[in-house]
């Protein structure tokens, strides 16, 4: 096997492994948030959680796949490792970005849900009696 093929295979193994790990973390720890957002409706929370993770997988694996191509030749193992570190670094940054984006979605859903029962922003100017409608 040439250095290129080994670099590609290692790249795929690391990126896919990382994606699975982050998605698993998200799936496991996001559930608590979602159950709270949906007022204890666990089937709905599980469903939304699953759908979010599917989207996460699609975007990340899509990026991993698009970013595979190196575009230049590798002669030595040193060049292979350097190319690998750049590629894996990019995947890590995209994964990090996606992870924070997911956290942002979770926290926004939670805030929206808590607003539903929030009191008015200001007090009234006066009071009046209420007649018939």
């Amino acid at each position, binding site marked *: 096997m040439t250095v290129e093929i080994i670099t590609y295979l290692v790249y795929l193994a690391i990126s896919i492994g990382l994606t699975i790990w982050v998605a698993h973390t998200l799936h496991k720890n996001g559930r608590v948030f979602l159950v709270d957002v949906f007022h204890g409706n666990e089937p709905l929370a599980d469903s939304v959680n699953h759908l979010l993770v599917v989207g996460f997988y699609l975007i990340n694996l899509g990026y991993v796949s698009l970013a595979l191509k190196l575009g230049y030749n590798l002669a030595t193992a040193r060049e292979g490792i350097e190319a690998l570190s750049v590629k894996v670094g990019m995947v890590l940054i995209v994964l990090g970005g996606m992870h924070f984006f997911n956290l942002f979605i979770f926290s926004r859903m939670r805030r929206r849900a808590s607003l539903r029962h929030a009191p008015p922003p*200001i007090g009234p100017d006066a009071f*009046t009696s209420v007649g018939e409608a």
Partner: protein
Amino acid sequence: MTSLIVLYDPLCGLCLRVRGWLEGQPKLVPLVMVPAKSEEAHRRFPHLDHAPTIKDLTVVSDQGAVYYGPKAWLMVLWALGRYREWSYRLATPELLPTTRRIVSLISQHRYQISRAAHLSR
């Protein structure tokens, strides 16, 4: 609080346009639109001073809490599912003076705005 009664100026094109927009918005608290100083308004709130309700937007809760002008607008925003967050943001001490200024400005010039934008009544 289970509903808010909005007393709006039925002679202003802008107000009618906003009313139409409000009707299409998802609500967390139902809004009941009643023309200001109308018979229905007097029937619903027999002891309310109705003179200011034609000058500024007025919102009355089903429990009788009265909100005038900028406060009325904040209550309307609060009732809307998509804008409840904004009602808190605009009511913070930092933004409330600006909110008051802008709302009174629009309210004072509502007939000019309606005419300029060709919003018929």
